């Protein structure tokens, strides 16, 4: 069986850092080829090279059918029938389903105007072929659920006669029932001879649907195997490459008294009846799928979206938190999921960002004490290993990992007792990641209570003393470090979604 698409010895560097090293990869007609690896392993770079977004370095060859390319433009990729369904769906919310499906290649009448009836009819046929008879071609995309929007994306790809369909974590934001429908759609596409590149973190899905699996780690190809030849254990070992215990060097915890007690916490219907205790010196891992309410819970505790019901006790005293300012003054810090959105002021210097949550500490009554501010920044730079020209460098110029450290430095400057970290290592390189993990371990050992929200199961399992699993806005399980495993935590993450949906 000849491949639809074949990559040989493809590499890619960004700013001198090789993020993909001599990778071979191929896609055959009528197969689901799973692409796996940790965050930062190079999966996104690889699929972006295939879809023509990134130009690979010299030396690699991309073969499509009989023609060879050194690189693909996104136009050439589209012409060759390569389409991508991205994680963040690229649709226009104000346009209808049919318009989105045919955006850029709408059928025309002989007069050159849009042929609306043909467009609607073809969109209908495409959606029917995806088992989506219930999806209205005239509905505005903005009104659709995530799962339906994803089907529109798939229909859009098919409308361009896609022969290779890349799906980037298609189930990351889907509920269980929708995942199963998606599986049916993917199988149907495979029967039609479409070659599917399926990027996913979720082992059960991969075992259900994939024919072959390729694992990347730190930008290198670890191996491509038929699915029958691998087990869950061997896949995890290939992805992580090391024992989890080695990857996350965790100091012996020194767990003290309960510092924070959350009882029946609610925010609207997005955070529902969450209760947990947090102890001094403890790292509490929060696991759950995207949309399970993890971030919403953090925002509620931190006062950005104040609780609508329930109680929070700090040191046994009931408190109410209605603004981030209050939370900060109580010794709670929140390092946000999206450092661009809630973390950094990019045009400002490192020093100005680090002092931002401690302005009262660097003023004498009225005026700022710049020497004190610089001292805070120099401390943060030294303590966190921020690589920068100096405390006055503008943070917009730093790399992702160093930006994350600046946000962390800002909150550590407030001397918090409780540190909430939302996806603390998302999108940063492996070196910075392990530095942040080491720091978390050290802070906890010094007595700080840490709540760590993470989508990376190895990170949760490696760092947390206890794991609180969230699902559908509420806590469904608390698992101790000894019992926590990919199976126990993973099961709790995906369990019970259906019963919750019925309840809604």
């Amino acid at each position, binding site marked *: 069986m000849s491949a639809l698409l074949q990559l040989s010895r493809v590499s890619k560097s960004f*700013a001198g850092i090789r993020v993909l090293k001599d990778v071979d990869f191929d896609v055959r007609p009528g197969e689901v080829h799973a692409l796996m690896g940790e965050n930062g392993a190079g999966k996104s770079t690889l699929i972006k090279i295939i879809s023509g977004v990134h130009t690979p370095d010299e030396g690699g060859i991309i073969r499509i059918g009989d023609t060879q390319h050194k690189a693909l433009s996104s136009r050439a990729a589209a012409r060759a029938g390569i389409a991508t369904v991205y994680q963040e769906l690229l649709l226009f919310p104000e346009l209808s389903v049919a318009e989105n499906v045919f955006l850029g290649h709408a059928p025309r009448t002989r007069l050159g105007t849009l042929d609306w009836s043909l467009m609607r009819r073809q969109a209908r046929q495409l959606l029917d072929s995806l088992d989506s008879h219930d999806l209205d071609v005239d509905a505005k995309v903005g009104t659709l659920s995530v799962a339906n929007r994803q089907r529109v994306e798939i229909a859009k790809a098919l409308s361009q006669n896609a022969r290779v369909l890349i799906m980037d974590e298609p189930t990351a934001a889907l509920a269980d029932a929708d995942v199963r429908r998606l599986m049916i759609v993917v199988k149907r596409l495979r029967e039609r001879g479409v070659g599917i590149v399926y990027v996913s973190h979720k082992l059960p899905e991969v075992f259900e649907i994939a024919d072959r699996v390729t694992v990347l780690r730190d930008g290198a190809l670890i191996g491509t195997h038929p699915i029958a030849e691998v087990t869950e254990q061997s896949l995890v070992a290939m992805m992580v490459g090391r024992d989890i215990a080695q990857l996350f060097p965790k100091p012996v915890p020194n767990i003290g008294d309960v510092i924070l007690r959350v009882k029946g916490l609610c925010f609207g219907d997005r955070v529902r009846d969450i209760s947990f205790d947090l102890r001094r010196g403890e790292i509490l891992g929060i696991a759950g799928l995207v949309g399970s309410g993890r971030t919403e819970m953090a925002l509620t505790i931190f006062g950005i979206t104040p609780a609508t019901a329930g109680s929070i006790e700090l040191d046994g005293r009931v408190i109410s938190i209605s603004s981030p300012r209050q939370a900060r003054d109580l010794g709670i810090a929140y390092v946000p999921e999206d450092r661009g959105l809630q973390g950094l*002021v*990019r045009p400002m210097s490192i020093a100005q960002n680090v002092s931002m949550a401690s302005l009262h500490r660097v003023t004498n009554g009225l005026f700022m004490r710049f020497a004190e501010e610089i001292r805070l920044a120099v401390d943060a*730079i030294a303590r966190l290993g921020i690589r*920068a*020209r*100096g405390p006055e460098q503008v943070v*917009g110029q730093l790399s992702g990992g160093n930006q994350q450290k600046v946000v962390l430095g800002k909150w550590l400057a407030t001397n918090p007792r409780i540190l909430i970290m939302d996806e603390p290592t998302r999108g940063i390189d492996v070196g910075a990641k392990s530095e942040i993990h080491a720091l978390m371990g050290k802070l906890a050992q010094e007595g700080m209570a840490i709540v760590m929200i993470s989508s990376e199961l190895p990170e949760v399992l490696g760092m947390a003393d206890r794991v609180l699993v969230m699902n559908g806005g509420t806590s469904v399980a608390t698992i101790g470090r000894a019992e926590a495993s990919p199976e126990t935590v993973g099961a709790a993450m995906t369990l019970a979604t259906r019963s919750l949906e019925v309840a809604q």
Partner: protein
Amino acid sequence: MTSDHAPAFVAKRTGLVRFISTYGQEVVIAGAIIALFVLVSLVSPRFLSANNLNTIISGNAYIAVAAIGMSMIIITGHIDVSVGALIGVLATISGTLATAGYPVWIAWTLPILIGVGINAIVGALVAYGRIPSIVVTLGMLSILRGGLVSITGGAWINDLPPDFHLAQQRLLDIPVPIWFMVVLTLGAFMWMRHTAFGRSLFAIGGNIEAARAAGIPVERRVVQVFMIHGAFAGLATVLFATQLRVIQSTVPPNLELTIITAAVIGGVSILGGTGTVIGSTLAAILFSAIGSAMIFINVSPYWLRAVIGVLILITVLVDIARRVREQRSAKR
């Protein structure tokens, strides 16, 4: 991907380089003003006479003063298009009080308080009503301008008492408006740079969510900065209303645009978060100097607006290019 923990200071930049990179726009405008003075004085030496310099600088001082408050508003990420109309209303109130026989200090100070009060309402609508500032101030613009014309019928105020004309007086042989402009500009510059309050305005304009998450009381600060801006509008009114023998209820048309333009050309990013109030004052002087230079070299002063328009486009393009470059240079 090295993992040394020591802070790696690649290079210490000298004070001068840092000064220029921080105050680049201010340096450029100051340079432009000097170049203009040199060039025009070659054609017409009278341009540099003390008399003409005083006229150039003091005539536009009220714009510079109003632009201080406007710069603070824009740095915070907002805009006020009603300030010209506000100055018109306040000037009329001031003149009416003076001609009605109230002491001149009341005619000078009451408009400042009213400016603060009106802008407190604007700020509250923006901060707590969550209405975009351009919408609120557009509404305020219509209310103020419409109200003013209806009540005054467009009449001018004459017969102002002689001691009312503060802007025509001199202190140590320097016109009072120049004192106002210099002292207020430097004071506001120090305030913005050296207080936690000023820092919080930059933070709000740079990233409002990050500012809020860091515990900065965003809503309160927005109301406060609008009130301060109202005070500067009131101070500008004092200079504007007392510089001529009459007060026209029709203030210079497009006054708000001139004030916003001074702030933007002065280096305040229209996207918020960066800039200083010194730049806007220099820009106000530059406008005035260009206008005067045109007269001296016999170019129709009507070209002034066109020249300023070109300056705006250049400034904004440079600002955007700088931001794009910064984003590119930010390594992933």
